[in-house]
C-alpha cells in the first residue's frame, strides 16, 4: 500500500506553506502505518493546519468513499488551497477556517497535525505565512494548545499523528501525554539539513488495538 504525492499548485496562494521535508516525512510515516490505519476502519479523518492540503488529500485518494475527510487551518488562504488540491485530485475534503479543532462538536478516528514547530519569540506568531512555522517558546505554543485538548476530539479507539522537532523535546511531550492518558511512540525520525524531525503517534490508554 502506498500514498503517492497528490498534484498541487500553489501559484495563486502565496501565503500557504509550501510542502517541504516535514510534509513528505509525514506522508511517508502515514504510508508506513497504513495497515494499522486500515485496521481501525476510520470513518472520519481530520487534518488540523492542512496548508496546501497534500497530506489529507493523499489519504482521501487512498480511502476514496470509505471515509470522510476534514481539514482546518487558521489561514483562510490555506483552506482555499486545500480545497483546490482535493479538487485537482478528484476527492472531497471538507474545509473549515478555524483555530485548531475548537469548533467541532464531534470526534474523529484519526487526527493529523504538522504544527508550526520552529522555536521563535512568541510575538512572531502572527497572521499569514508566519503562522505556518512560528511556534513560540521551544516551538511548543501551538503544539501544547493542540495536545491539551486532543482527548476531547479523538475517538476512544482513535489515533493522532503529529510532527515534532528535536527542539520541541519530543520525549517530554510523550511524558506529558502519558499524564493526559495517552500512550505515544515515535514512528518515524529523519535528520535533514539543520532539522531533526519526528513523527509521534498518540493512542488513548486502554485502547488495545
Amino acid at each position: 500500500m502506498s500514498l503517492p504525492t497528490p498534484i498541487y499548485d500553489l501559484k495563486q496562494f502565496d501565503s500557504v506553506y509550501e510542502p517541504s521535508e516535514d510534509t513528505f516525512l509525514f506522508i511517508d510515516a502515514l504510508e508506513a502505518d497504513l495497515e494499522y490505519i486500515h485496521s481501525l476502519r476510520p470513518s472520519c479523518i481530520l487534518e488540523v493546519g492542512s496548508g496546501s492540503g497534500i497530506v489529507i488529500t493523499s489519504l482521501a485518494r487512498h480511502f476514496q468513499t470509505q471515509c470522510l475527510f476534514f481539514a482546518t487551518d487558521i489561514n483562510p488562504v490555506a483552506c482555499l488551497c486545500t480545497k483546490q488540491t482535493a479538487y485537482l485530485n478528484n476527492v472531497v475534503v471538507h474545509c473549515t477556517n478555524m483555530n485548531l479543532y475548537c469548533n467541532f462538536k464531534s470526534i474523529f478516528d484519526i487526527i493529523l497535525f504538522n504544527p508550526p514547530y520552529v522555536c521563535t519569540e512568541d510575538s512572531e506568531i502572527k497572521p499569514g505565512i508566519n503562522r505556518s512555522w512560528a511556534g513560540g517558546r521551544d516551538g511548543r505554543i501551538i503544539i501544547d494548545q493542540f495536545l491539551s485538548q486532543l482527548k476531547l476530539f479523538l475517538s476512544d479507539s482513535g489515533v493522532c499523528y503529529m510532527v515534532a522537532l528535536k527542539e520541541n523535546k519530543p520525549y517530554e511531550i510523550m511524558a506529558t501525554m502519558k499524564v493526559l492518558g495517552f500512550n505515544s511512540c515515535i514512528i518515524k525520525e529523519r535528520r535533514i539539513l539543520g532539522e531533526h524531525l519526528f513523527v509521534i503517534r498518540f493512542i488513548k490508554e486502554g485502547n488495545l488495538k
Partner: protein
Amino acid sequence: MKLITHNMLTSKCMKGVTVGYPLKIQAVDVKTSEVDFNPEFISRLIPKVDWNVLCEAAESVGFLDDLPRELIENYENDVDFLKKAHRVLLEVDIINGELVCPETGRKFPINNGIPNMLLNEDEV
C-alpha cells in the same frame, strides 16, 4: 459547506456560549454537486449524525424533499433511503451565506463554500 460539516460545528468556544449548537444557516447561494455514493459507508455514518439537526438544516435551505424526519428502521438495507441521506449529507453545498450562533447571534461567514469560524481575541 456540506450539511455533514454543519452537523458537526458549534460556536461553543466563544466566550459566554454554553452549547452553540446547532448553528442557524442563512444561505445565499446553494448548489448541489454529485459525489460518489457508497451505501455501506453512508449507513456507517448515519449513527454519528444528529438526524433532527440534519433535517432542519436541509429544510432551511430548501432541500429536505421527501427525506423522512424520523430515522427509519433497517435503513442499512434501504438503498433508496441511503441515497437520499447521501444527497443531503454530502451533495447539498452552501457556497455563500452565514452561520449564526444560536445564543449570541454572532455571524460566521461562508465564502467559496468554506465557513470562517475564527474569533476575535476579545471573543475567546
